[in-house]
């Protein structure tokens, strides 16, 4: 997928991130966060690059990446939408909402929609439990969401994306 020069650039960036975080106590999670926030995921090729300076095995680094739901090893779509599945949202119709959203995007969790390139992920509580049901898009959390509000949010997202592409 990535061209040799792009791969080189990626390698260099990851090296910089790793070395910048090395002085920290317990630097692995901060490194993984920095890489994911830069690339949208933690590329598989970066595992040995992270493991060596931290004096860890590749298996250990892989183990950490795969343990945490938040870290991903493949690129997400243009937008990631998290739908809260926890009890407070269930009490306000989250089960219906998640099924409506899956139907609307025509995908299941951990998949990316063809239209709008939206990756759908479950989440267990966004701390917005008095304004349920909630979803999260990027850094923004939305409360009292139903399928109509979801449609509005998605429309806004996809329109913005078009503007950026132009």
């Amino acid at each position, binding site marked *: 997928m990535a061209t040799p020069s792009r791969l080189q650039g990626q390698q260099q960036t990851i090296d910089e991130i790793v070395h910048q975080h090395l002085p920290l106590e*317990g630097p692995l999670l901060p490194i993984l966060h920095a890489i994911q926030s830069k690339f949208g995921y933690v590329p598989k090729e970066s595992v040995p690059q992270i493991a060596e300076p931290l004096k860890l095995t590749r298996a250990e680094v892989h183990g950490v990446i795969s343990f945490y739901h938040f870290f991903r090893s493949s690129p997400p779509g243009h937008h990631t939408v998290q739908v809260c599945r*926890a009890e*407070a949202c269930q*009490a306000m119709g989250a089960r219906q909402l998640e099924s409506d959203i899956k139907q609307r995007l025509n995908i299941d969790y951990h998949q990316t929609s063809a239209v709008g390139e939206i990756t759908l992920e479950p989440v*267990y509580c966004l*701390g917005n439990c*008095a304004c349920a049901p909630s979803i999260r898009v990027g850094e923004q959390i939305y409360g009292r969401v139903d399928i109509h509000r979801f449609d509005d949010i998605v429309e806004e997202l996809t329109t913005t994306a078009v503007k950026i592409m132009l």
Partner: protein
Amino acid sequence: MNQTNTTSSSINVYLPRDTSALSLGAESIAKQLLKAAEKRGDNLSLIRTGSRGLFWLEPMIEVESPKGRVAYGPVTCADVDSLLAADFLSAGESHPLYLGLTEQIPYLAKQQRVTFARVGITDPVNLGDYRRHGGLKGLRKALAMSPQDIVTQVKNSGLRGRGGAAFPTGIKWQTVLDAADRGQKYIVCNADEGDSGTFADRMLMEGDPFSLIEGMIIAGLAVGATKGYIYLREEYPNAHTILKQAIARAKAEHVLGSNILQSGKSFDLEVRLGAGAYICGEETSLLESLEGKRGLVRAKPPLPAIVGLFGRPTVVNNVLSLATVPEIFARGAEHYHGYGVGRSRGTLAFQLAGNIRYGGLVELAFGATLDTLLNDFGGGTLTQKPMRSVQVGGPLGAYLPEEQWHTPLDYEAFADAGAVLGHGGVVVFDDSVNMAQQARFSMEFCAIESCGKCTPCRIGSTRGVEVIDKITASADANDQHAHAENMSLLEDLCDTMINGSLCAMGGMTPFPVQSAVKYFAGDFDSAPNKTSPTKGAHHA
């Protein structure tokens, strides 16, 4: 963030930057308000605060008046022009969204705000504002005390861990102070607030982060730790931003770092992000995660107080436990101890969530009843249907039927009722809830979030989902023999998980399941969802 106009003639207007207020559109309202006011030539200073925790009124705007702050809400962008026209900058009473003096709104007036005294009032990242509202008084007192005196004061206050386990905070601190090890010690704040129905930690960190910082410094002085970490869940991006801003302010003004308030003492603090693992709210798993490992639960003993972060003696406390400490020093241990009942001293920040008309934060002294919370404060369900079931204490807490709602809100009374207060989350369900479906979710959640270290939790949870599916299937097929057999299997499985799991994840997941079986047995006699395709498939 250049929203604050500091000219003296301007009127102070307050609007939360709290996640829940933002989730309902507070940011667009801020922009709209500034634009509209400028157009009209109105001179206002917009101050972004935390939330008062009256979430059905969010986004709520407050305006400074000679009598105090006056509130308007819930505000939408469409209301901004009419608010300005109705002279809300002079606390005009004519607008339909006018709520009167904020402090006199009954929901707020009936509370005992101690830990949350400043939340919703101050600018969370303005240290001057914090000082003007009583901040740093506790720290100044603690700086003049010996470590043992600090620990004794916390013991005398009766403060118990607010994360859920309710272990006496002072005793934990004493253990770390007494640790023979003379090397590095740590203060770790558990801000991995993963329980559904809880948001008090988030509100505190977004609304008054300096109180948490101050509490952590005092903890450091008490036990001889010079380094602290706040382990914050990744799901709280707004709290992350605000905490980082607050820590930077505190460092710049020498409240944090070396030579705290010219005392010669030092304490350094860092925020670390989790990565979407519920289990990392368990303290030993949290420590593993901070060390850069998978969040596997450690066997106890040794306690983290003796062998904690990187093997060093470590205090691990919840956000609210630490944020309450400054007040205990500012006003004295006796004052705090004066709130509450029995061995549950002080206040607890209850969180009314789920299907509730007036959802929000209710800080009360221990001892009120659950019914007071649900009806006097909560006003019944939002859907206005009868309330059927209430889950207290997060996903590991029991579901309580109406006959249990008279239970007093204190740790011991809840334990006697086979329930937990936990972190104070209260999730309300109306009569459309199917409790077999809820029980199944408890097991499903445990299967998704189990760290995998011990068998009862890792395997038991998956078997739990299967057994509950068999129960509902056998009920549908009217197979009484299979139904009885699987109900008894579920009981055995719960027993194994409770007695055989390494930590509370597997050990308490059966609580909501058993309570659903005990109080809502009828729901296990029918399929969870009468319209679900799986039921149809089963009949075919």
